[in-house]
Structure formats: C-alpha cells, structure tokens
C-alpha cells in the first residue's frame, strides 16, 4: 500500500465521519418536527370535538383564532398546516402573543410557558374566558389547563381536565374523551 493510497483512505474516513456527524442532528430534528407536526394537527382537530358557547365564537367572517402564547415550539409549522383551513365555518388565523391578556379573544390558545408561576397566572386569567387552553405537558391539565399533550410510548397523547373545560363553558365531545389518555375531574368516569 502506498502512502498516497493511505492519504486517500484517510480522506474517505474523514468524509464519512463528517457525513455521519452531520446526519445525526438532522435525524433528531426530524423526530422533533414529526412530534410538533402531530401536535399542530391535533390542535386543529380539537376544533371538531369542542363546542364553544355561541358568544365565544367569531362573528360573521372574522377568523377563528388559534393563538400561541409565549414560546412557539411549532416553528412555523402551525401556520403552514392551517393555512387556508376552515374551523367551524371560519378561516383559521394563527396568532402569537407575549401577554395572556391579549389572547383571551382566541378560541384555542397553546400556552408555551414553561415557568410554573407564570403559567398559573395565565391559566387564572384565561380560566373563565371560554378559551381551550392547551399545554405541552401532562402537568398542564392538572394545574388547571383544559388539554395537555403528552408523549406515551412514542405516541402523542393528550390529557383532559373536564372541570377546567366546564369552568370555561366548553363542551367536549365524548369522542374526544374516548381517545384522551387521561381525563381529570370526571369522578363518575373511571380512567381507562
């Protein structure tokens, strides 16, 4: 074997190592993307199984508001997914908020707030304003949110707090409860 060949092999190995290294983070981000794609779809799917009080729904041709409060883990996927979609006869509009007080006119608000105290304040603020609050953890409905995403056995599931839904004057379809991972605040209905 000549030193020239040796050089070449080293080059190939370097290239392979480089390729391997670059591939790994790409894979991880793809998985994450898949998770939030699903969650974005779920957010939109909730519209079909939740009944808002008539006063809380948009009038005329006003858009159906799906808001993201705080950090946006969807990274634009929500907009691209919901672009041009209709929700209960209205065009869907995705809005981003920093402050919870701006979000109480929305029908669905994804609370991307990781800070526990602040999240509590947000929930207190939105509790009675007929907003379907959706959080990114199983603790979210326990803390007073209506729906909380959870990943169970590599599948995106969600928990529901029925009491919080009641407080927000929201009626959840039994079909939704049927597919929920855990339903809180429903003493008569044992958890599956």
């Amino acid at each position: 074997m000549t030193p020239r060949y040796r050089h070449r092999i080293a080059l190939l190995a370097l290239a392979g190592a480089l390729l391997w290294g670059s591939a790994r983070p790409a894979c991880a981000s793809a998985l994450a993307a898949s998770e939030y794609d699903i969650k974005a779809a779920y957010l939109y799917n909730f519209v079909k199984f939740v009944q808002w009080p008539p006063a809380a729904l948009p009038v005329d041709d006003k858009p159906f508001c799906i808001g993201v409060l705080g950090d946006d883990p969807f990274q634009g996927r929500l907009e691209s997914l919901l672009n041009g979609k209709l929700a209960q006869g209205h065009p869907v509009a995705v809005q981003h908020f920093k402050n919870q007080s701006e979000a109480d006119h929305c029908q669905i608000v994804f609370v991307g707030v990781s800070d526990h105290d602040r999240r509590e304040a947000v929930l207190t603020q939105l509790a009675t304003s007929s907003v379907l609050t959706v959080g990114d953890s199983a603790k979210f409905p326990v803390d007073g949110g209506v729906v909380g995403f959870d990943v169970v056995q590599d599948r995106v599931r969600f928990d529901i707090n029925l009491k919080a839904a009641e407080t927000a004057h929201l009626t959840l379809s039994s079909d939704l409860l049927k597919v929920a991972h855990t339903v809180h605040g429903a003493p008569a209905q044992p958890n599956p």
Partner: protein
Amino acid sequence: MNRFAARIEQLPIDQKLLWMSVVATGAALLLCAASLVTYDLLTFRDTLHNRLVAFADILGRNSASAVLFNDATSASQTLASLTPRANITAAALFNAHGELFAHWARNGARNSFNAPPSQLDDRVSSTLYQMEIFHPVVLDGSHVSTVYIQSNLSERNRRLMRYLVIIFFVSGLSVALAAGVSRPMGRLIAAPILNLVHIAHEISEKQDFSIRADVPAGEELALFVQTFNEMLGRIQASGYVLQKAHDELEQKVIERTEELHRKEEELYQSRKLESIGRLAGGVAHDFNNLLTGILGCAESLEAEIPTDSPARIDVEEIKRASERAAALTRQLLAFGRKQIIRPTSIDLNALVKSTGTLLRRLIGEDIIIAYELQPDLGHLRADAGQLDQLLINLAVNARDAMPKGGKLLIRTSQVVLDGESDPRELPAGQYIMLSISDTGVGMTRDVQSKIFEPFLRRRVWEKGRASASPPSMAWSNRITGPF
C-alpha cells in the same frame, strides 16, 4: 318429449284437464314467483348497500376522533362493535392519506386490504357471495377517514331459501287446489262423452237405432251429441228401408217357393193324370170296341124280335145303355187323348138336364139332386164334353163331402159383374153363372181354391172311385179365364 306427449294423449279427458290445469297453474305461479324473487333480490342489493353505508357512516363518525388523534386501539374497538352484525365479515379504517389505520375481520386475521379510492365518494362492488363498500367520512368539511365494510350475502341466501320454501308450499297448495277444481270439471266434460259411448254400445248391442242420447248443455258437446243423434236417425231410416226391402224380398221368395211347390205338385198330378188318362183312353178304346159289338148284336137282335114281343123292351134298354156307355167311353177317350177343345154354342140348361141323368147314377140314392135353372138363359160358347166333365167332378166332390147323404143344388143364372167386387178379378160384363152347392161339411178357403181340381178328397180317389174325375182338371184350367 314425444313420449311424454304420447303418454298425455293416452290419458282420459278428465285427467288431461287435470294435467293441463296443474301445469298451467304451476307455470304461472313459478313465473310470478321468479319475477317477485328477482325484484326482491335486486331491491335487496340496494337495501343492503344503503345499510352498509349507514353502518360505515356511524362507524366513521364514532372512530373519527380515534383516527384524528391517532388512537388505533380505540378505532379497532369501534370496528369490533360490528361483531353482532352477523353478515358483516370484515371492516377497515383508512386515514385521510389513504393509509390503513385499523382493521377488523370476523374469522381470523386479515391484514391485506385494498387501498381506498382517491376520490371522495362511495364505492360499492359486489360479487355473487359478498358486497364491499368504501365510504369516506367528512367531519366539519374535511375528509377524516375512509371506512371499508365487507358483508356476505347470507341474508340474501336466507331470504332466497325462505322464498323457495314459501313458493314450494304455495305451489303445492295451488296445484292441489287446481287439481281439486279441475277434477269435477273434467268429469263434467267427460260425462256426456262417456254417456255417448254407453249409448253407442247399447245401440250396437241391441241393434236398436231408435235410441237417442240426451243433449247436454254447452255448445260443442251439444253439437256433437246432436250430430250423433242425427246420424242415428239416418241409420235408422236407411235401416228401415233396407228392412222393408228385405221383408218384401223374403215374402216374394216365400210366395214364389210356394208357387213353385204348387206347380211341381200340379205337374206331378198332371203327369199322373196323363198316364191315367192314357190308360183310361186305352181301356175306353177296347171297351168301345166291345160296346160296338154289344150294340151291333142288340140291333140285329131287335130286327129279329117281333115288335110286340116283351123281350123287345129289354133289347131297347140294352141298346140305350150301350149308347150311353159309348158316350162315356168317348168322353174318356176325349180326356185320355187330350182332344182339342171344340167350343160350340151351348144351351147350358139342356146340358145340365142331360148330364143330370148320369149324375143320378154317379152319386147314389141318399143324395137328392135339385135343379134351379133360369129360363131364357141364352147360349154360351164352350166345349160340351168339358162342361159335362166339370159337372161330374163337382158332383163327385160334393158327394164325398156328404157321406151321410144330403142335397145337391145345381143352379144356372145370368149375372153382371162390375169388375171390382169379384175376387177372381174378372173384367166387367155379362156372364152366365153355373153354381153347385151341397149341404156337406163345407170347405175352407184353401180347399175352395182347389174345388175345380179332381180328386180333392185323395182318400176317395185311393178307394178307386175315379171314374168321373180325371177330365175336370184339364177343363178347369181352361175355365179360369173369362168365356
């Protein structure tokens, strides 16, 4: 088929009718049932399709959340809710991207399902044994999933089976009913024909063409029986004519045969008489020669005896008796030789008187002979000898009819016949009648027709008293015609 037709042809009418009604009823019923069943099966396909779509819709709505939130377990549970629906064999759920999401099958695992159609509409496909549908589920305006359901057609087969059972029983009942109705009908139709057969049999048995069949109601049969009766009438009429001709012929044959017998008898008698006549003629010839001798001797004796001698009376008596005997032998000779008859003009009264002397001797003492002779009788043309003989024949026959004595009356008279009342059918005109009657035992019509024949009493003839009778046969043959 031909054998079947031939077999049907051999059946009696009522059974033919029975078969006809049974087959017609059965065929009509089967056709009816077949169209009804076909219609029902076609309708059933639509009904089943609609039902499957309804199931799919409910299933789709119930499983929409499971599909949307990716809960295959829940979706499978929802699909499994089809288990009580016995005829549904498999079901599957596809998500909006057409990927298989959940599936259920009744018997064992079935993992391969055809992809749903890309268009958002219902699809149905059915084979002989199963039907499958794809039904898209749209929720709130967006396509959520597509439901696939497969159903077998056992329900259809069950229906078909039920229909077959019902058709079988109804057909049986209808056929039985048709048979029940057509049997008396058949008898009704066959009865007049059988009656006709019976009558035809009776006619041929009794040879009686006057029998007639009762005319039944109903156009064709009535016509049939009427024609049959007319035929009988014609046969009867022709048979009557034939019988009449036959009877007449037979009568003629009998008459001719009798006549033939009679003629044979007459011929026999004539031949007998002829030979007897010839014998008598021979005897008369010899006797006449003897009489010539006697008469010659008597005349020469008369010439020798003096006129006043008492012996002269005896000689004259010998001469007279000899002359009478000669006349008798001449008569015998005339009969025996069948002399040609020479009719001459005769005074009947004179002839009767001269023959009366001879009759006196012929018929004996105990019979009185009386004469009733019409004066101015006129003359008739006949052979005197023959007429003499006739008188002798009749007188001898009369004597035989009166063995213990009696009275013989001889009458002559003029009569006029009108040509109608006389049984001998003589033409009308003036006649001279000679009638001879006796007081004897009388005679039958049969005897009457033979009264002119000699030897009427055969017994008498056999006793040998034939002297006066033979000539009257030939004579009476001639006298039967008018003079």
